[in-house]
């Protein structure tokens, strides 16, 4: 009896100390994430302006959708859901996310497969591949902005020398190519991340599978499609989801590479412009809330779909 009480006192003490240890971290997270998130959502339902956040008045869904009746049966819809600018930002973000993540996955897979074979100079390739990842996003945006300069850029020079184009392209300024420019920089910058995650998956495939296939003389393309790909699919999927969630909130590259461009303005850029440049604090908060909802729904469905096991040890 006494030992049991002693043990339960001990474990009660351990549980108490667990919460004591967690408290500082939880307080900081609440102050820096949960409370600001709640305030952002709240501001979206008010008429808050940037200098008078404490005097915000509740106005319901008017930032989202409002019908103004002009009388005589005429009227107009206002608010985010009726704002063409917002929908264009949603469309830009989706286009950016789907295209960039697709190419990042394909290129990442190719690089991972190369890094997974043993050859002379593999260490060199691995090191080189890490370089784009190590370069700050802003720096990559500026580097590429310079390379894509319409008059002095080396990219136009290369393409003209190769006779692929006849006249220089204004990559970041022209409406037709601005989004392509943004995607190019993003794909260049984040493919290494994709490659590393897929490589981690590839390295878990047991080597004897390949040896057996080699002995049986299985065609390598067939081997890849029937054996390797299904085995690394979980790793690829996780990498795709992580990148997609990241791409949906893209801000830096767009803001620096193609400022004030309707063709590339993403949801994050739209929200920040309204918050701090256009003096529409409440409207920007509503846009932030919608972006949060989209990302949250995707995250929850991902966790649910994969039934992610957090308590992995049990």
């Amino acid at each position, binding site marked *: 009896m006494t030992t049991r009480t002693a043990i339960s006192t001990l474990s009660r003490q351990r549980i108490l100390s*667990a919460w004591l240890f967690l408290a500082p971290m939880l307080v900081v997270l609440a102050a820096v994430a949960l409370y600001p998130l709640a305030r952002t959502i709240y501001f979206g339902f008010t008429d808050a302006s940037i200098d008078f956040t404490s005097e915000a008045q509740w106005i319901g869904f008017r930032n989202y959708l409002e019908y103004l009746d002009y009388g005589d049966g005429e009227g107009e819809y206002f608010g985010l859901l009726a704002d063409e600018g917002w929908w264009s930002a949603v469309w830009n973000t989706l286009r950016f996310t789907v295209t960039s993540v697709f190419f990042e996955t394909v290129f990442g897979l190719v690089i991972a497969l190369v890094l997974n074979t043993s050859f002379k100079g593999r260490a060199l390739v691995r090191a080189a591949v890490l370089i784009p990842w*190590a370069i700050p996003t802003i720096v990559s945006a500026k580097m590429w902005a310079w390379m894509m300069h319409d008059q002095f850029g080396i990219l136009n020079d290369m393409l003209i020398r190769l006779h692929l184009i006849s006249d220089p392209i204004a990559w970041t300024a022209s409406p037709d190519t601005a989004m392509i420019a943004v995607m190019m920089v993003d794909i260049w910058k984040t493919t290494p991340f994709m490659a590393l995650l897929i490589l981690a998956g590839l390295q878990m495939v047991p080597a004897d599978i390949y040896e057996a296939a080699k002995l049986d003389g299985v065609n390598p393309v067939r081997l890849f499609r029937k054996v390797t790909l299904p085995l690394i699919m979980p790793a690829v999927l996780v990498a795709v989801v992580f990148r997609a969630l990241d791409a949906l909130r893209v801000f830096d590259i767009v803001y620096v590479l193609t400022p004030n461009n309707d063709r590339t303005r993403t949801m994050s850029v739209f929200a920040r412009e309204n918050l701090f440049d256009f003096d529409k604090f409440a409207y920007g908060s509503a846009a932030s809330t919608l972006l949060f909802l989209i990302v949250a729904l995707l995250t929850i469905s991902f966790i649910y779909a994969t039934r992610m096991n957090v308590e992995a040890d049990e």
Partner: protein
Amino acid sequence: MSPAITRLAKTAGFYLLVAVIILQAVFPFYYAILTSLESGQAIFEVNYLPTAVTFANYWGMIADGVFGKQILNSVFVATVVVCISLFLAVTAAFALSRIRFRGRGLLLLTILSVSMFPQIAVLSGLFEVIRILGLFNSLWSLVFSYMIFTLPFTVWVLTTFMRKMPIEIEEAAIMDGASSFTIIRRIFLPLMWPAMVTTGLLAFIHAWNEFLFALTFLSTDGQRTVPVAIALISGLSEFEVPWGNIMAASVIVTLPLIVLVLVFQRKIVSGLTAGAVKG
């Protein structure tokens, strides 16, 4: 075609692919260095190889004075962020990995989901908090706000790391009646250095590169961190953008990162995959 030729063609194709991979990865930064070493009219001629090397752009940035201050700002913010988040994360990870209590799984999920928050979703609320705390245009506003991405990440990685350690290592200490804090300090900390170096390094890089909060919460040149400083370098008109200076500044802030990443290659790769894949 004879088998020998086929094999040769395959090898050649493979090494061609390898060459393309290396070239695309390295070339943009090589070209930034190249441009940073040119000045005057040479900048506006497309060169593939160095011509007349001059350090004028670098002297220009250093003589400016403000840029040096901005580098110090970035070093300060990233270092303090790493120290605070590691300290908070080690104790939290101990509780989350070594002690069984109700609600642990839910807590881990919540922490993980915070790392998925789009930064923009907390921006207006954080702006208000930072103004109320009187931190606007202070480097502490960044130290505070960067916790939103460094803390969940460090807690998550250190928890998975600590979980893998055998229970025996602390049993004896518990029997001796050592307090949990002593257990962390005397038993776990010495074993945790590798994991802490990795997560600390990744958190440092993340804080060093952050742009949105730094752009929003700081308003004067002397307070800015380097990513914002580089983004805001501009000439009097579109035709006078000082590309040489921008590239010199880019090289200065990127070179140490590349060296760090290459030195700690293996650790970083394992840290990245632990942060993303495990779970």
